């Protein structure tokens, strides 16, 4: 049982780190601010929540585990709000989204 929990924690944490890596790569590769917000701001916060969830599993049902869950909850509320606020500010200050050449409209 203990081994199982520990394995689950390591898997969660590892996948979180992978998501963070992907988020960082996306931050480098994607073409403009809005697309980078998709990759970094959110793939990254998903990775972060997975990491903290793994740590919470590792800690087990103690007070610190509960606090880790609190941190996750706070990030789950605050990170979309922060991303929205930043994107909204960008739009309002006149930043235009990048478009792939020759694309637009509903179909891919």
């Amino acid at each position, binding site marked *: 049982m203990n081994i199982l929990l520990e394995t689950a924690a390591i898997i969660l944490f590892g996948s979180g780190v992978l998501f963070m890596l992907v988020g*960082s790569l996306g931050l480098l590769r994607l073409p403009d601010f809005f697309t980078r917000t998709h990759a970094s701001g959110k793939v*990254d916060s998903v990775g*972060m929540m997975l990491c903290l969830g793994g740590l919470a599993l590792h800690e087990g049902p103690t007070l*610190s585990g509960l606090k880790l869950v609190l941190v996750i909850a706070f990030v789950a509320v605050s990170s979309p709000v922060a991303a929205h606020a930043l994107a*909204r*500010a960008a739009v309002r200050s006149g930043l235009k989204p990048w478009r792939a050449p020759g694309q637009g409209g509903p179909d891919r």
Partner: protein
Amino acid sequence: MESLYTPLAAFLALILLPPLYRVLRGPTVFDRLLGASVIGNKTIVISCLFGFAFGRIEMFLDIALGYAILNFVGAVAIEKYFSSEEASR
């Protein structure tokens, strides 16, 4: 898992480099801010890891929570600033 704390923290610190590049080079100011917020996110995870590594988890968790709060308030402040200043680049 205990033996993994330090390598994982080192790896996370390594992943901080791409956002740092964005902070330094980002074409617009929003790219820089985005990079900064990503660095903030990773700092939270790293400080939790440090808590485990040093065996003072409750202390580092408080730090992480406070850091997350200030990060969020900072993001809202920046939104306020740039949506009131028109055409600031």
